[in-house]
């Protein structure tokens, strides 16, 4: 570390603003950086195993906190500067204001952009250490970064790393001990100190001066006109550019495979073929390998035949139970069925259980346990809240969510996602969204519940509403897709064409209508295209695990509550009443067999149950179209409804829910009338 920097200002005693989280006695290290600079890798390196991921109070921004030595370590969302332009910035701003040590991670290739934030942190009077990451990429692009010169220019210690390859990370430990206040604009510093009596800290004083209304309000002073912000920003930008002339020297931009691929993926001619290849690969991995092959093993074999069976058998030890045994033939069809009645539970009549076992012999069988006690039915019966949540969550959803997040992390780490957003931006504007919405929509084909949570990354409330509505209404999740594909295969190509045509035009219509009627406009796309990189397995794995854990923690309880709710409907007989009430509609209006009503109601529990229910009805090709259109548009599963209510609020959630119910039956009926 060079000591040639001008003597930094002495640290001042600043009042600490109240922090909503953490132990006040422990010093806080805050990681700050632009999006895609490798912050999470540094965080993972410093944090070790235990990480606490939570929502920042009052927002849906994820916040990771961990322990490092005697410090609390905070990760912040990627930001371009400290201000209040969006939720991410507001969250990062408050954590930074409360931080004792700021570790600022910058991208060696994008120093022009990233050092603006660095200089702002220094202007805030924070003790800063800078980690210059992606030195390998800079080297490849023949950009030479002089770290010592940078230290001199900024007045704070600097280390260089290639985080994904774990190079140089060990120097960060030393950096933490050397952080200090950097070189600030003398004029600005004077102005800030004059404000210290009214606001708590230099950092807050700077934000007030830069027109931050929230901070001004906190201290009961009027907000400063934003023209002052422009002055400060332009001055800072100029200071950064001057420093950089000393620090960075570049020769030429090399053409590398990754760079070329990155360019191709946003070119008008090659972009769309590349997108098609990516989507096809995604389909093969998630749609075929995970959703079909893997889930068949985890849900079909382990979940249903082993775990659920053992639990139900255990519950039936002393409870009056009827066990009906379906012996299956080689094709998996039911070959014969017999009921066994246990008045005193399985333990009470071991001989009968042996009879049942003998009846099955060496064949494969499905067991249905029907308990006389309604409480047992509620928790362990056919739709038992405990048994169903368990199989559904652990053996169907978990592999699916893992698979999807893995694929998403690979795409994210490769740098492809922003390019995908660029490519589809124009098309998504028709339905009132900008390119970023492509991520939740793709995720929707995996699990609508998961996708609904992901709508958080969209910029405005309006976009979140439109995206959620489209997801809940028109996107079939992977649980349904399998059955839909199987049914369409029997119905033939014409039916398939009609079905996709209807769903697609419905999706476009809903988006267009919402875009026209909702107040406000589409937020313009302005997105950074990071370098294309080869994703690193350990980083992708860690990301996949975090995201999956976060999802399960967030959505898991709702799946249980949803299952419990439906289970109560079943035990009380309400489920039958609803089915009966739906029958005239189903038979008269949709022209489907009576049992179609049951399938629709089952769709409430799990969308695939609905589709599977239709599978067993003897339907004509056109009836299949009607059934599938209705089911796809029909209300989403209970879990995604719960998550939607949480994300979008009670009023909007219920509106979308009822809307999809009415629309599904209306459109299904119209299609039925036309086709007949």
């Amino acid at each position: 570390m060079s000591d040639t920097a001008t003597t930094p200002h002495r640290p001042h005693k600043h009042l600490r603003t109240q922090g909503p989280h953490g132990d006040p006695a422990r010093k806080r290290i805050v990681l700050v950086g632009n999006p895609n600079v490798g912050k999470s890798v540094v965080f993972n390196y410093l944090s070790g195993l235990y990480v606490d991921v939570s929502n920042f109070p009052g927002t849906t921004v994820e916040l990771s906190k961990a322990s490092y030595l005697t410090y609390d370590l905070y990760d912040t969302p990627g930001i371009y500067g400290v201000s209040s332009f969006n939720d991410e910035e507001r969250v990062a701003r408050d954590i930074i204001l409360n931080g004792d040590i700021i570790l600022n991670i910058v991208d060696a290739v994008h120093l022009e952009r990233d050092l603006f934030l660095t200089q702002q942190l220094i202007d805030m009077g924070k003790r800063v250490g800078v980690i210059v990451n992606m030195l390998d990429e800079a080297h490849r692009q023949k950009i030479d970064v002089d770290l010592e010169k940078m230290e001199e220019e900024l007045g704070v210690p600097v280390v260089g790393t290639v985080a994904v390859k774990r190079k140089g990370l060990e120097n960060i430990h030393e950096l933490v001990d050397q952080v200090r206040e950097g070189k600030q604009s003398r004029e600005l510093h004077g102005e800030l100190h004059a404000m210290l009596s009214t606001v708590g800290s230099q950092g807050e004083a700077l934000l007030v001066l830069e027109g931050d209304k929230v901070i001004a309000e906190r201290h009961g002073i009027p907000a400063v006109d934003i023209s002052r912000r422009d002055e400060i920003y332009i001055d800072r930008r100029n200071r950064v550019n001057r420093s950089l002339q000393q620090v960075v020297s570049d020769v030429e931009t090399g053409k590398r495979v990754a760079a070329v691929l990155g360019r191709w993926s946003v070119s008008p001619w090659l972009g769309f073929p590349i997108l098609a290849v990516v989507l096809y690969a995604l389909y093969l991995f998630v749609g075929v390998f995970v959703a079909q092959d893997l889930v068949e093993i985890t849900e079909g074999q382990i979940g249903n035949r082993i775990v659920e069976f053992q639990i139900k058998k255990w519950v039936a030890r002393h409870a009056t139970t009827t066990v009906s045994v379906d012996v299956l033939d080689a094709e998996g069809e039911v070959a014969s069925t017999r009921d066994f009645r246990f008045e005193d539970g399985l333990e009470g009549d071991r001989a009968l259980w042996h009879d049942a076992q003998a009846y099955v012999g060496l064949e494969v069988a499905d067991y249905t346990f029907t308990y006389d006690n309604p409480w047992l039915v509620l928790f362990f019966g056919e739709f038992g809240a405990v048994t169903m949540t368990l199989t559904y969550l652990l053996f169907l959803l978990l592999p699916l969510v893992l698979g999807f997040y893995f694929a998403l992390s690979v795409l994210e780490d490769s740098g492809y996602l922003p390019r995908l957003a660029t490519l589809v931006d124009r098309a998504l504007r028709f339905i009132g969204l900008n390119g970023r919405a492509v991520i939740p929509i793709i995720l929707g084909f995996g699990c609508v519940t998961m996708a609904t949570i992901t709508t958080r990354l969209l910029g405005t409330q309006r976009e979140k509403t439109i995206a959620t509505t489209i997801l809940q209404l028109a996107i079939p999740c992977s649980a349904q897709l399998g059955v839909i594909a199987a049914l369409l295969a029997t119905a033939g190509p014409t039916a398939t064409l009609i079905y996709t045509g209807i769903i697609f035009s419905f999706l476009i219509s809903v988006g267009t209508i919402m875009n026209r009627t909702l107040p406000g406009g589409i937020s313009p796309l302005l997105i950074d295209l990071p370098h294309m990189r080869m994703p690193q397995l350990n980083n992708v794995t860690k990301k996949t695990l975090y995201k999956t854990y976060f999802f399960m923690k967030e959505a898991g309880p709702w799946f249980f509550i949803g299952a419990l709710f439906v289970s109560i409907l079943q035990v009380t007989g309400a489920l039958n009443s609803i089915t009966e009430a739906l029958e005239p509609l189903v038979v008269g209006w949709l022209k489907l067999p009576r049992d179609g009503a049951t399938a629709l109601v089952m769709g409430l529990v799990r969308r695939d149950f609905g589709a599977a229910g239709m599978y067993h009805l003897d339907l004509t090709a056109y009836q299949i179209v009607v059934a599938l259109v209705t089911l796809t548009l029909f209300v989403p599963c209970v879990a995604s409804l719960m998550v939607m209510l949480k994300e979008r609020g009670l009023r909007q959630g219920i509106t979308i829910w009822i809307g999809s119910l009415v629309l599904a039956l209306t459109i299904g009926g119209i299609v039925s009338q036309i086709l007949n």
Partner: protein
Amino acid sequence: MPDMKLSAMRKGMRARIDGLPDGEMRSHFIRIGLMEGSVVACLERLPGGTLVLGFQHQEVALSGELAESIAISQV
């Protein structure tokens, strides 16, 4: 050419920025390194007007609508 907008850029063109929209968008442009006087190159132009711009080793994509609000002169 007077009163030229960024949205008029075609692939391969270079231009100097003369005017940015006001407000937060302007602050954001300054943060990422685009100000009046910055020179940008148009790397790609997609159907519908979405642009990929290159400047100072950075690549950003912006929608045609946003490009409409930025004044440039060709260099």
